[in-house]
């Protein structure tokens, strides 16, 4: 994985010093909260309901064991013993004191980490497929390009005061696990007919109050043009994006109001000017970064398959976990392990300091010292030998990390909601916990199959409800929390925004409503192979609306 060189070290420590100075000026009253705000935001410091919150960047979700241990240490010493992994593959601390922030940033810098550009109207932490460099279905590893974009976008002089935040995601497989079509820029790394690498470029996707699926403006952009083309998009946006209304300031609105064709024309015109400048990426530049991401040399472990068969036979729970949480690796002797941070009835994405330490230990011994954070708020061990699955499972079991629910109905994404967030209208976490408890039985979950529930506590959609197979949006109506349901959303390669079913449900009703939907699905699916999403796409909203609202009417 990427290792900081002296350049990165010098940059990050200078930025920590800068922020120390800014915190001191704020505490001394030299900076007003208004002036401090964009500066603290650029350093990942938010002001939440109860306290400041620090969001730590985990570039493209890749961590070493040493880094994970440091995150655990910070949780223990500066927070209340836990951290929250987010849908941007980042980590949030909910309770650090402002005066401690510089110390925390020093700690992070000691393991090549920082909180830069995890907020503010700049280019945010670039995300990538959490199975990058490991998944069997991958065309090429997207992380070198995410890293190039990270470096290029760090404290970018031209693009640090954009109309609004800007999110870029990169994937290197046809199966889109990075939700690129709901990003400001989505990059799909692929090969053309002659085998050269390039990107399909998507622009203007996003969720929030105006959800939109991104438009493809380039089917194949050669790798060497990555930065010049991205710069062209950014420049068109920086100059023309709306600044009069923060809710209309994302690039998706510019794309929508300008029209895809005209916007593409503007981008291409700017690109022609930039193409032959020093933004061009020669192959040796790509190679220099690529070398950091060389695949680990994995010893042959063919004995694993027979061991696995025996272990599965002996332990049904283990077998279910393997089915659900282990994904094929490029190397047939290995698997990609998803560590669920969704224990039944737990808080999605939360991990204690002890859990983080445990994951770090396991990764060091059994996963080439690598950990990933997924945008689905789980952790991933990318390179585990099939022969080691049993011991890894046993270790995970010791601290509640072996929940066999990856991709199932209890693998819920939820934003922090009204329990933490100053923007929220409704609580998300308790709803997620109750749904998780209702559907927690392994047999029931397994029978229901793949089903993604995503919950946001307000219209900003941090819980990605628009792309949930079942999306739940908390709103506030006459002082009460109300939950609106949408169906059929999907953030993968066939990206769709969910359809709102109708009137919302109270906190008491919402779990029953979800169950009504699930029961109807089980009734009408053609067979167990037809997933919820496939069924919804076949039959549409009507049968579900019917179940939801006629039953409610009958009950009334």
């Amino acid at each position, binding site marked *: 994985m990427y290792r900081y060189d002296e350049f990165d070290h010098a940059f990050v420590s200078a930025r920590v010093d800068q922020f120390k100075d800014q915190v001191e000026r704020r505490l001394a009253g030299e900076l007003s909260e208004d002036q401090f705000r964009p500066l603290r935001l650029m350093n990942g410091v938010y002001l939440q309901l109860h306290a400041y919150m620090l969001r730590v960047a985990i570039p493209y979700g890749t961590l070493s064991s040493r880094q994970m241990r440091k995150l655990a240490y910070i949780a223990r010493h500066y927070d209340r013993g836990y951290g929250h992994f987010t849908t941007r593959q980042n980590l949030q601390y909910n309770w650090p004191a402002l005066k401690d922030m510089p110390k925390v940033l020093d700690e992070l810098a000691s393991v090549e980490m920082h909180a830069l550009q995890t907020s503010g*109207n700049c280019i945010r932490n670039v995300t990538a497929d959490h199975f990058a460099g490991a998944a069997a279905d991958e065309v090429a590893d997207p992380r070198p390009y995410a890293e190039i974009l990270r470096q290029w976008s760090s404290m970018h*002089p031209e693009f640090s005061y*954009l109309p609004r935040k800007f999110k870029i995601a990169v994937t290197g497989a046809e199966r889109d696990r990075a939700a690129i079509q709901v990003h400001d820029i989505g990059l799909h790394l692929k090969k053309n007919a002659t085998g050269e690498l390039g990107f399909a470029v998507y622009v203007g996707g996003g969720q929030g109050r105006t959800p939109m699926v991104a438009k493809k403006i380039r089917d194949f952009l050669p790798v060497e043009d990555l930065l010049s083309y991205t710069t062209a998009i950014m420049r068109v946006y920086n100059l023309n994006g709306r600044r009069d209304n923060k809710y209309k300031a994302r690039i998706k609105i510019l794309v929508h109001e300008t029209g895809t064709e005209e916007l593409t024309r503007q981008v291409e015109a700017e690109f022609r000017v930039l193409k032959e400048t020093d933004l061009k990426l020669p192959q040796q*530049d790509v190679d220099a970064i690529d070398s950091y991401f060389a695949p680990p040399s994995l010893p042959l472990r063919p004995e694993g398959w027979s061991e696995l068969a025996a272990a599965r036979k002996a332990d049904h729970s283990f077998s279910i976990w393997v089915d659900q949480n282990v994904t094929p690796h490029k190397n047939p002797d290995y698997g990609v392990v998803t560590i669920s941070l969704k224990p039944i009835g737990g808080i999605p994405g939360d991990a204690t300091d002890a859990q983080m330490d445990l994951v770090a230990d396991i990764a060091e011994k059994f996963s080439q010292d690598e950990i990933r954070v997924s945008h689905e708020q789980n952790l991933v061990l990318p390179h585990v030998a099939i022969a080691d699955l049993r011991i890894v499972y046993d270790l995970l079991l010791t601290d509640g990390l072996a929940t066999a629910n990856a991709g199932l109905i209890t693998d819920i994404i939820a934003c922090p909601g009204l329990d933490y967030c100053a923007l929220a209208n409704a609580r998300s976490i308790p709803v997620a916990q109750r749904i998780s408890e209702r559907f927690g039985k392994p047999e029931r979950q397994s029978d229901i199959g793949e089903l993604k529930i995503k919950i946001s506590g307000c219209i900003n959609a941090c819980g990605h409800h628009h792309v949930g197979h079942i999306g739940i949006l908390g709103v506030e109506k006459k002082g009460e929390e109300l939950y609106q349901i949408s169906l059929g959303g999907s953030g993968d390669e066939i990206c769709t925004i969910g359809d709102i079913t109708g009137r919302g449900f109270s906190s008491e009703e919402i779990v029953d409503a979800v169950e009504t939907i699930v029961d109807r699905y089980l009734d009408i699916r053609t067979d167990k192979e037809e997933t919820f999403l496939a069924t919804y796409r076949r039959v549409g909203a009507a049968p579900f609306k019917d179940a939801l609202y006629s039953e409610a009417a009958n009950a009334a």
Partner: protein
Amino acid sequence: MSDIPQISHGDLWSREGFREDPYVVAETLEEAGDAPAIILPLAVWLGLEDEVRNATNRKIGVSVAPGESIEPLLASLDTIPVIALQFPAFNDGRSYSKAEMLKNQHQFKGELRAVGDVLIDQVAYMLRTGFDTLKVSHSVTLTRLADHNLHDTPVYYQPGRGSRSAPGTYSWRRVPSA
């Protein structure tokens, strides 16, 4: 306050330090009277006759608001002594793109000036996108600039002008990979 002496040396900052601003900012030519150096709004400048714009007895510069396009200036860049790009609020970043385009793409050789809400925390960005001078009124910014505390980092990932005299390139070209 320690910033009083600096103000007496002027409020126009460049890497050489503070100096008096030779330009008078005026809404119209008439309002400027017989001032030898004037900065006019873009719309007014566009309405001037060529011989007035290029008169040798005085300098006429142009002020550009964030919402205005630099396109109409491009044909005259050789003769414009100063372009003042406005920052009505520090977080309106449009003028950074214009600076980059004027200096890098169109090789504007005159003085590129940042005016408005110029704060110390944005100074490095301004220098790196090609601004030559900053018109400063914020007192903390005045003090810090007078102390040559640019609030800068020693290295940057992108090639940039201004804040570093060493010619930059991309970070991954500067440091050989491990």
